[in-house]
């Protein structure tokens, strides 16, 4: 497994990318909780419209993505406690509402990083050196994400 990142020698041990280190906590958060860019887009859309409740079909239309896939992303984000969910006659509605202040701060930091350094985030999600290890670890999950 070749390291695609130069492991930073910064005091905080952050990942060093071409444009500087990313705080370790933020890098870990992205690597642990984000499995695709679509999931990030969903998370940030609801964060940017925090006051609004969204149905899966509305998010799907807004992002131009498949309804089934968006539905799964929303469910996963709600299970991970990034979103609040309310069940209505027309199906579940979701709203931005991280479980803790710390989680909210990490989502904000990830959104800022995604705006400023999109490639660094894509690298974290798809190009991480330990993605094979994560796949191995995730193989022990009986229910897929």
């Amino acid at each position: 497994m070749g390291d695609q990142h130069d492991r930073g020698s910064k005091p905080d041990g952050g990942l060093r990318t071409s444009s500087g280190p990313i705080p370790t906590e933020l890098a870990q958060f992205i690597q642990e909780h984000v499995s695709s860019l679509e999931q990030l887009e969903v998370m940030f859309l609801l964060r940017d419209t925090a006051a609004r409740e969204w149905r899966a079909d509305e998010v799907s239309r807004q992002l131009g993505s498949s309804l089934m896939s968006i539905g799964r992303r929303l469910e996963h984000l709600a299970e991970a406690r990034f979103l609040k969910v309310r069940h209505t006659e027309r199906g579940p509605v979701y709203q931005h509402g991280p479980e803790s202040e710390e989680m909210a701060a990490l989502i904000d930091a990830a959104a800022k990083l995604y705006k400023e350094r999109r490639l660094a985030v894509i690298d974290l999600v798809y190009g991480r050196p330990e993605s094979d290890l994560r796949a191995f670890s995730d193989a022990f999950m009986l229910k897929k994400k």
Partner: protein
Amino acid sequence: MNDLLSGALILGFLVIALFFLRFWRSTRDRLFAIFALSFSLMAVNRLILAIAKLPEDDFPYVYLVRLVANALIIYAVIDKNRAHKATPRPIP
């Protein structure tokens, strides 16, 4: 057990444990840490058997260490699944 086989088993378990330890350091995934501990216990178990020359049939308690090691693997898998099974919070 044959000394050669015993040594090979101890070395094998230790190597596997070290691999999992490295995986844990790289990913910080608890599953790997518990796996490393489990395989270390298996190595320790084999080491005790080799040094004390205990016939396993007469000392069934030596299986307890192995039982704990295997239970740890089961616990690691349960823990892995539990970590992702949070209940969504309703909107108040």
